[in-house]
């Protein structure tokens, strides 16, 4: 692999032109032409594509799994959540490093290092994300409010998402605005509910528990709880392949070198899409002016990672934990239901507790927010999955370039929707019981694997001046050991994958 020779002369378009240009050789695939890095947005507060990661990440882990652990083990267990989310914030920053420097997805980066790694993610994504089970929590909460059976809501939501995404001209712009508004509503609403029903002591205990480093009760090491604890840490913030998809959203938002790549369009406008270049681009890292702009982009994404991603994920779990503690205080049945692990019964009991403790509307509000979380996750998930698969198919499946990226995106979107509806009507929503363990394994394994991919692509494929420093490498390396180590420990010691 030639990563040391900075530039070489190769023709960009062999047919018809004899012009040569500076390129950056990265890995085994086509070299990246050098292009100008655009200026970073000066206003650091402008919202970026992290909104997708927040929409995907703030899900059941935050609203159910962690409140459950707090009720079982006490608030001190929350230090593990702090570690999990902080680790994910660093992963976000490192994912952004490659995507912003090249305009390529992390999947493309993986293929540059070793193609089979990319194929692993390709197959794993289909296996993990084609099941419509993720719709069930939000749709079930909607059923509690309206009485409409959840399968009906889920099927309607699936078709709605498909039609909506097909009609849009540029999908990213619309989704960013919509998710931005929905998450804003979620954050405002969650704060208001927590402020109404929670109290100082609950919050004090929850916050204190975040710094109880090293607390690990005997019970948490048991066969029954260890896989759940590991699963909860892995699912703190974005889980599975969600961080990898973030690189595609960064590219489509036009962040840094992503601005040289055309945007994905809805099916209706797919023919207007500009032609997709066959690889990403690199900027001149030896030009001080370009490096200055790069620093601006890093600042922009760091703000996104810290305030939006870390801050909002923390806020939502803290609020939901405070809510669970207050519900358990009002109604002791809630604690045993939550401990028992029946999610729907536990959420229902929490809602009842709020209704009787604070004011009757709080129970409904609680369900409304679970439904909102479900809607955010569904919108984000369908878009991200289709984006990721379209990207890998376009670049690496022979003959796929005949179709535009936008058409491939539409193909995957409608494929997963059709399969989802069929499964909702005739099959098990989460996937066949026999493969549930395999799916849980793949999801956590993918997280350990992407940490290794990150270390490889950022240290081997990027020019030296923009590679990560030793501290960041150690943190990402720790991530790989953390996810894979706990996964295999759970598997070998208890014979159970995470849950």
């Amino acid at each position, binding site marked *: 692999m030639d990563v040391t020779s900075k530039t070489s002369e190769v023709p960009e378009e062999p047919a018809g032109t004899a012009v040569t240009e500076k390129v950056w050789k990265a890995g085994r695939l086509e070299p990246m032409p050098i292009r100008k*890095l655009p200026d970073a947005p000066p206003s650091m507060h402008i919202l970026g594509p992290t909104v997708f990661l927040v929409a995907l990440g703030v899900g059941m882990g935050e609203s159910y799994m962690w409140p459950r652990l707090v009720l079982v083990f006490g608030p001190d267990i929350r230090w593990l959540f702090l570690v999990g989310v902080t680790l994910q914030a660093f992963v976000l920053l490192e994912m952004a490093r490659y995507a912003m420097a090249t305009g390529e997805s992390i999947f493309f980066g993986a293929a540059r290092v070793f193609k089979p790694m990319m194929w692993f993610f390709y197959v794993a994504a289909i296996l993990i994300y084609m099941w419509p089970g993720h719709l069930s929590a939000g749709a079930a909460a909607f059923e509690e409010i309206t009485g409409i059976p959840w399968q009906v809501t889920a099927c309607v939501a699936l078709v709605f998402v498909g039609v909506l995404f097909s009609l849009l001209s540029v999908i990213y712009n619309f989704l960013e605005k919509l998710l931005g508004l929905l998450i804003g509503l979620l954050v405002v609403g969650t*704060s208001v509910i927590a*402020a109404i029903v929670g109290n100082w002591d609950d919050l004090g205990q929850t916050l204190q528990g975040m710094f109880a480093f090293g607390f690990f009760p005997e019970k948490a090491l048991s066969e029954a709880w260890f896989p759940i604890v590991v699963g909860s840490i892995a699912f703190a913030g974005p889980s599975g392949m969600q961080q990898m998809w973030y690189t595609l959203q960064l590219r489509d938002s036009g962040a840094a070198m992503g*601005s*040289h790549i055309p945007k994905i369009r809805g099916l209706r406008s797919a023919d207007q899409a500009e032609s997709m270049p066959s690889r990403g681009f690199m900027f001149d890292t030896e030009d001080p002016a370009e490096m200055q702009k790069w620093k601006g982009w890093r600042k922009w994404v760091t703000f996104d990672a810290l305030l939006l991603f870390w801050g909002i994920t923390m806020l939502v779990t803290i609020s939901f934990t405070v809510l669970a503690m207050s519900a358990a205080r009002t109604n002791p049945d809630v604690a045993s239901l939550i401990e028992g692990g029946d999610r729907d019964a536990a959420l229902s009991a929490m809602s009842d507790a709020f209704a009787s403790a604070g004011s009757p509307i709080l129970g409904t509000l609680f369900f409304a927010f679970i439904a909102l979380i479900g809607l955010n996750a569904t919108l984000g998930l369908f878009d991200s999955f289709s984006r990721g698969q379209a990207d890998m198919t376009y670049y690496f499946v022979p003959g796929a370039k005949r179709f535009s990226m936008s058409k491939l995106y539409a193909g995957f979107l409608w494929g997963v929707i059709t399969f989802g509806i069929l499964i909702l009507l005739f099959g098990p929503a989460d996937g066949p019981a026999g493969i549930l363990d395999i799916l849980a394994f793949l999801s956590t394994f993918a997280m350990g694997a992407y940490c290794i991919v990150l270390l490889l692509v950022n240290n081997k494929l990027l020019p030296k001046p923009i590679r990560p420093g030793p501290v960041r490498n150690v943190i990402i390396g720790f991530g790989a050991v953390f996810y894979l180590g706990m996964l295999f420990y759970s598997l070998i010691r208890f014979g159970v994958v995470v849950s």
Partner: protein
Amino acid sequence: MTQTADLKQLAEFSVPAVSVGAAAGVIAGGLAAFVGQPFGWAVATGLGLGVPLMLFGAGYAVLMGTGKIPAGVFAPAAVYWVIAFPLSLLVHSVVTEWVVTGTPGLPPEPWKFLAFRALVSMGFAIGFLWMHEQIGRHWWPHILERNIYARRTVEQYSHLAAALEARKAATGRGRKKRVA
């Protein structure tokens, strides 16, 4: 500009900030009505929470419009809501007590009540800022011609627009020009 005209402009400029408070109130009141609570109860809950949040939201917009605090920056919003959010919840609590028992009353341990809400206000401040910007970026350009405060705020964002323009230009250059 007369004082009335000025106030009218400020009120118009404050629409996005007021809508965030209204959203909180409407959600609370609307859902109360939806689940079959008496109409009066739903209205009282909605107003008890919505009105103070709307008023404080307007206060924030006035400070921003008159240039006392910068547009869309987190720290001033956090400081503002650390005071305004607990007070809004206090009003809500008093109103709820009034509706339920017939006489208004403070919550038990009022200082602890306020301190807890002050901590939670951080979250509200992020959500407020987020929604304020999302709604404002559609509303302010719409009233730009007749509203000096909207114009000033849009100007604050204008160097961002310039940067976006530069990004587009860079893309254009990237496609056409080749470095020899």
